[in-house]
């Protein structure tokens, strides 16, 4: 199969095609039965991961594997991979690539985390396919490929996966594109409902999609400088809660999440407001294993809403000033009336 076709099948099927391909490859080049079953199980969850594992356990031996440790007796006689091919130095294990991608996505502001592996990982498999094709041609077995022709179940997987892919792209692309946009220092970022705004203190902040850090109903999520600095804001109707209750709940939650080392709270009226009380609370917590974190939580109560801005940094020495600057920049915007116009 041409590598480009494999790539297309993999993306269009939302990765579901890859376990099929990897299974066939494993069958073609030696197979450990238990790994096949595991791959099928995993394949329904994260197809690229399943494919990578399947390949890893059952694919062609690595460069450092002696020829006499090749797959079992069940290896077909028309195995296009010669011992020489098995010794090819130009193969990158897909699992390794997958792990790299997972690591990148974990620390990256990019959301839609699974989209990156979906688009990038099949490249590794396509590369493997091109290697197999080249070896097959070299072995003089042009009709033999590591992958069987498309069967009906292949088409079913491709259709379902394709549908999932379309939905995912439709949902994730706007946020994904937004994630790629830089926020300039001193830029003003408004909440989703345009109820408040923050001034970003440096160019190290990115806006991320709701649910990336906090809950799906968050108003605003930002990632900041360093490895673990972020801000999440929530809005709650005043009819359901009040300032004291929100603060008490957050305090309970944070005190339960780690050993509290310090807690300080101040309250004032928001400057320029109609006596909107604002609480700013500092939490210093010990999460164990030498890990400490610093929260600065701002809570404001307007006539109709309670706004909570939770900021966190795991490196207070380096980033606490920036976090405080973000919190102090909090400013309310006039509520919009039902027509969407700002109330005077």
């Amino acid at each position, binding site marked *: 199969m041409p590598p480009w076709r494999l790539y297309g099948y993999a993306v269009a099927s939302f990765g579901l095609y890859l376990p099929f391909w990897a299974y066939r490859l494993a069958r073609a080049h030696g197979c450990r039965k238990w790994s096949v079953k595991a791959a099928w199980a995993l394949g329904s969850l994260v197809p690229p991961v399943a494919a990578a594992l399947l390949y890893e356990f059952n694919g062609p031996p690595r460069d450092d594997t002696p020829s006499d440790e090749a797959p079992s007796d069940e290896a077909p006689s028309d195995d296009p991979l010669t011992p020489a091919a098995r010794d090819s130095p130009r193969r990158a294990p897909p699992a390794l690539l997958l792990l790299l991608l997972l690591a990148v996505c974990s620390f990256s502001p990019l959301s839609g985390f699974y989209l990156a592996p979906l688009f990038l990982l099949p490249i590794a498999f396509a590369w493997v396919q091109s290697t197999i094709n080249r070896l097959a041609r070299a072995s003089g077995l042009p009709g033999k490929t590591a992958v069987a022709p498309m069967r009906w179940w292949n088409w079913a997987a491709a259709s379902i996966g394709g549908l999932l892919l379309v939905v995912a792209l439709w949902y994730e692309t706007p946020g994904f594109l937004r994630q790629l946009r830089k926020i300039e220092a001193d830029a003003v970022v408004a909440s989703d409902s345009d109820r408040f705004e923050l001034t970003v203190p440096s160019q190290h902040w990115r806006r991320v999609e709701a649910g990336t850090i906090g809950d799906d109903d968050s108003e605003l999520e930002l990632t900041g400088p360093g490895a673990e600095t972020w801000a999440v804001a929530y809005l709650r109707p005043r009819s359901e809660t009040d*300032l*004291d209750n929100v603060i008490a709940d957050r305090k309970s939650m944070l005190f339960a999440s780690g050993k*509290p080392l*310090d*807690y*300080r*709270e*101040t*309250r*004032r*009226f928001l400057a320029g407001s*109609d*006596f909107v*009380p604002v*609480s700013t*609370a500092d939490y210093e917590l010990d999460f164990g294993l030498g890990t400490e974190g610093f929260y600065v939580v701002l809570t404001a109560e307007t006539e109709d809403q309670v706004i909570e801005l939770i900021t966190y940094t795991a490196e207070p020495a380096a980033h606490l000033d920036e976090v405080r600057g973000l919190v102090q920049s909090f400013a309310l915007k006039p509520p919009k009336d039902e027509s969407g116009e700002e109330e005077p």
Partner: protein
Amino acid sequence: MKRRVASLLLTLLAGAGVSLAQRGPFADHSWLHVDRHDLAELGIAAAELTVGEERRRELAAEEHPFVDTLRGYSIRVEGRKVRMRKTIARHFLTEEGVREHGNLTLHVRAALDDLYLQHASITTPDGRRRRLDLARAQVVSDVSSNVFTDQFNVVLPFEGLVPGATAVLVAEVVRHEDRWPLPWSLILVPRRPWPVAKFELEMTWSEEDEPVWFSDPDLVDCGREPQGVLRCAARDLPVLAPDPEAASSTDEIPYLIVSEPHSWQDLARSERQLIARSVSDARGLAAVADRLLAGAETDAEKLQRITRFTSDEIRYVSLSHGTSAVAPAPVSRTLERRYGDCKDKVSLFLALAERAGLDAFPVLVATDRRDPARLIAPAWNYFDHLIACVRTGGPEGEVCVETTDPHTPSGHLPPSLYGTVALDLTETGVRPRTLEAPPIVWQIEVEAHNTIPCAGEFTEDLRRQFSGSGAGWLRSLLRSLNPEERDRWMSEDYREVMGQDWAPEVGVTGLDRSDDSVTLTSTTAFGETRTEEMTEYTESESWLRYYTNWFQTQNERLPYALHGARIRSLTSYELCAERTVRFLGAELELLSPFGELRRNYRRIAAGVEVETILELPTRTVEPGELAAFNRFLSRALDQTDIWFSLNEIPESQP
């Protein structure tokens, strides 16, 4: 012999009878006379006393109980004699009107006035007129505790009144202003809290007696005619309904004033002359002054001693007969009697102040007025009180003294006097002003010490201290109660805030000396408590909330005169030895144009101390600020719950 005795007896009896007949119905009131006239003789047309059928229906539909169809005044100025004929015609619309307003009243000062009852009649619904016996008028003295005057109310209870009837009363008051030491003036109030269909004023005078008159705009139509005649009239006057939000309902009442021409300066001069005459007879003062001022080194100390003497050691009794209503008694008499009213005590104070070298002056006060601009013309009638003020070199410029208040500390006035209209009786620059309140009038300190044992009774020792003007208010209230009533009041006062479940041991200090603060104390046990599992403590600042609510306003339309307050709450918590405070609650810095509320926490040896201070300086809160003012107080108080967390008790070793 027997015939002579009998004859003598008969003569005596006849003479007595004649005397009785000649004494008339008001023999005890030589100023009250019956001088019967028909309406026609008085030049009053019966038709003027009615109201049209349509208007009557309108008034009935608006549920008015009665209407004054005519309030007429005919004034004749003859030098220092002023004759005023007053005509009141009242048409009754309901039984309620008859019940509550079927008596018509005239007010007189016996020392100045002669009252001539000229006509009283009713016209029944069917149009018949019946004359009333003027001799049935009742004379009632205007009585209040410790105030003795020669002012009377002459009341005519009208007979045979039913809805649809009209009562008419005509009387003439001849005021002998030559007996009165101040420039004469009359204040007429055309609008009433009930409908007035017609107001008429006719004033005449001879050329050399021309009075002056002033009126609130749009109240009456006045026109001066040649040959010394002024006529004013108004029809269907709106019912007077002073705004309940108004700081002074009197200021809300429009009026017409007529008087002899004079200025505020003239009035002040006349008043000063009266006081000077009183001070000129100061026998016995020297000894009192020497005793009072012995050892006093500073002006402040002298002022304090003089204030306490005149306020505390001269009790309040007012003998206001004749010109004594405005002229103070000689200082010697006040010292001898050891009683006097405001003007007597002020004269005494001024005399003592002069001996002490203090620059003191008298000040007239209109206790029911707040706006100097509402005094549209000079007149003594506005003022009902006299105080003294002393010029000082301090930043406040002057210190005023209320000599009739034995409860308020020196240097402070009762809260009710701040903001009232005053007239300095000085030689220059005399014009109405207000008695300005200092930045802080109410000083309240609440100190609560809470003992929270690990196991045992949770107790609170509470002290609530009032200083300054507030101390005077509280001291006056508590001194008026006997000890049992006082204890009951203090217990109920505590329970009103803390709940009815508690039985505090209450006490009070500072009632004896009027310059001291007044402190309410209480000790309360809140029951057994076990704190082993307590991880945090939270409590509402109940007393801060309670006292702050005194200063919220219900006004929505009119300005609110805020008398400044400083409320400080210091709450401490003493924990048992095994518990320590871990984290503290929120520091507060709540600022506004109206004042500020601040709080901070302090760790102390046995626990924690929370100090909260609310400061609201004296100011006028304008209508556009009222909602914001209340909102500031409400939202600030919402942040004042006390909170702190406690350490976890380590598990005990086996």
